[in-house]
């Protein structure tokens, strides 16, 4: 067998299969929601985005009070859904809240986004353009040190920070075993019940994934089945890579700039957190 002739071809094949540490900005747009809960798209499929003229006509038939009322209901729905940090699907929103007002849906969503911004200091973010999912993100600047408000902290966020840090510092994708081993070194064994977190494996692979903090994707052709972890869409919107790098610098007592690749990645965009813009233009 001679491989000499086909070498350029083989090299091309090898290069496409080579896994570069992908910048999460480009990959977020072609992200597949492979491992996520199967979504009922029936309602969404029947919902067609009304055109601007349709919206105008719809608005003319309603009183301002009615539109305000509907907007307020949408705002409340989001706020309550956000308690568990689960993303909101457009289909659910239309089915449960908007209902008969679906012909002016874009206008309602625009007003709701404005309310979130002006009243609550929150940003309505569309994290999944394909499946139309939304989350709420804090629009205010994060404090440098701990927040002055002494609200009870959620220890899960500490664990999440550890996991996200490892993934980021390792280039954006890690095999699941690396995460499990790191957690074991932190006295958190995914095989055992932890006194603070309970079923750790379920929390990391199910809860964090459904909240879109993490992505847990199967690696093809592995036997036994292995998965890899990446940052989820919510993490992309909420978490600041620059601040994580700062934290790394504090822990290791090094200048964050010594991690040149990660530093470049963290500071390559105008905002350190790569949030997709609010939903007024995208639906």
């Amino acid at each position: 067998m001679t491989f000499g002739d086909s070498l350029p071809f083989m090299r091309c094949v090898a290069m496409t299969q080579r896994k570069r540490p992908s910048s999460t900005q480009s990959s977020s747009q072609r992200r597949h929601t492979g491992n996520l809960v199967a979504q009922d798209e029936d309602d969404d499929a029947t919902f067609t985005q009304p055109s601007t003229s349709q919206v105008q006509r719809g608005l003319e038939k309603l009183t301002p009070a009615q539109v305000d009322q509907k907007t307020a209901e949408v705002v409340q729905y989001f706020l309550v859904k956000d308690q568990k940090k689960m993303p909101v699907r457009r289909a659910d929103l239309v089915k449960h809240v908007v209902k008969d007002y679906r012909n002016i849906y874009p206008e309602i969503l625009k007003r709701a986004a404005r309310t979130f911004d002006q009243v609550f200091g929150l940003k309505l973010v569309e994290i999944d353009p394909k499946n139309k999912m939304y989350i709420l993100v804090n629009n205010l600047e994060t404090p440098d040190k701990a927040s002055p408000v002494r609200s009870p902290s959620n220890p899960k966020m500490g664990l999440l920070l550890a996991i996200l840090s490892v993934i980021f510092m390792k280039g954006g994708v890690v095999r699941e075993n690396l995460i499990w081993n790191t957690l074991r070194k932190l006295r958190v064994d995914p095989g055992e019940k932890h006194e603070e977190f309970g079923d750790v494996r379920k929390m990391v692979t199910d809860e964090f994934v459904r909240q879109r903090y993490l992505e847990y994707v199967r690696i093809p052709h592995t036997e036994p089945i292995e998965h890899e972890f990446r940052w989820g869409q919510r993490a992309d919107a909420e978490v600041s890579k620059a601040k994580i790098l700062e934290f790394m610098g504090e822990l290791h007592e090094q200048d964050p700039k010594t991690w040149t690749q990660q530093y470049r990645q963290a500071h390559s965009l105008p905002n350190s957190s790569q949030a997709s813009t609010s939903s007024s233009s995208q639906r």
Partner: protein
Amino acid sequence: MCLWLNFEKNCVATLGICTNKTSSILTTEAVNRPFLYPVSKTCFRSRTSARVKMKRSKGGGDEEAPRHNGSAGRRKADQQQSDGDEGGSDIGPADLQDDDNDQGLRREIRSKYRDLISSVQQNREDMLSPSNNKLTEVLEEANKLFKDVRQAREAALDAQLLVVATDLGKEKASQLFSEGTAFDPTAFAEHLLSFMGLNRLEDDEDEQQNTANGYLPQDAWHRLARRAECCFRTAPSFHYMMGSFYAEPPPPKQRIERQRKAPSKEAKRIMPTQLKKMEESQQEATEKEVERILGYLKSYYQDDPTSPISYYEFVIDPSSFSRTVENIFHTSFLIRDGLARMYLDEEKLPCIGEMILLCPSQELIDAFDIKDSIIRPPNTQND
């Protein structure tokens, strides 16, 4: 194998590695002569045909029999500096001899290969650390073993070892690739533990021991969570300040109702026999009380026969209103039975005294000139 040696010496070799389960392709531009090592069971030929091919390609460069490709390629790379095209090295001698020893030897080889494979898999993180050459040692060990490999079965194990090793090599390469400092999750975990307030025990014998020494404080994860708040732009959760109300009735009430129902049913069944006893005992209790109060009255009179006893002082219990009422009730029996008498003293305050003679109640009625009862009996109130 010069490829791996380059790693340990920290030279940056441009290399592209593609690994998947069925084929691993190593190309190295440093050697400037790509050699391919398709690893799959179907590529392995029998000994004889492979040897024939080896002889054919002895002088050549790139064409090599698949089976011996690995060893020849490896040895070729080893001799890279000294000889250029030393093609297929000596596989020839002493192949087919000693079939009896073969079986034992083969088993030994296979077992050693399996040990190597498991050692790479178990100590993966250890081998990844840039501070040691363990991966090279494993490969050198594999090279030695491969010299004795004659059959496809052992060669398949060799191939499996190479798949695992190249996977590790790829990760090591990616560590090299990153400019700047590498990131070590183990060190990160250690620093995190310190940040969370781990109280280490005094004696650290050797740092490599890595056993759990020290304990984490209760709020360890909360400390980290607080630090996380600075990195996250989480929307604060919306909750009603005073909480919400529950729409369903709370379960405990239902349980209490059920408990009460059960004993009452039993009580009904045995009531006919018990009721008489209760009534009797009630009457007895009243009588006893009345007698007790008569006793008090008598004792007061014995102490001081002349001074009158104020009625209020007699019946009132300053600590309990209900007992006061009971006292009044029982005293009224004394008066009804004529064992005591009530009268007004000089200041028109009611006093209670003993009756020496049993008087019918008619006397009291006459004495007080009671014509009509002030408290209307119940049946007349509904008029």
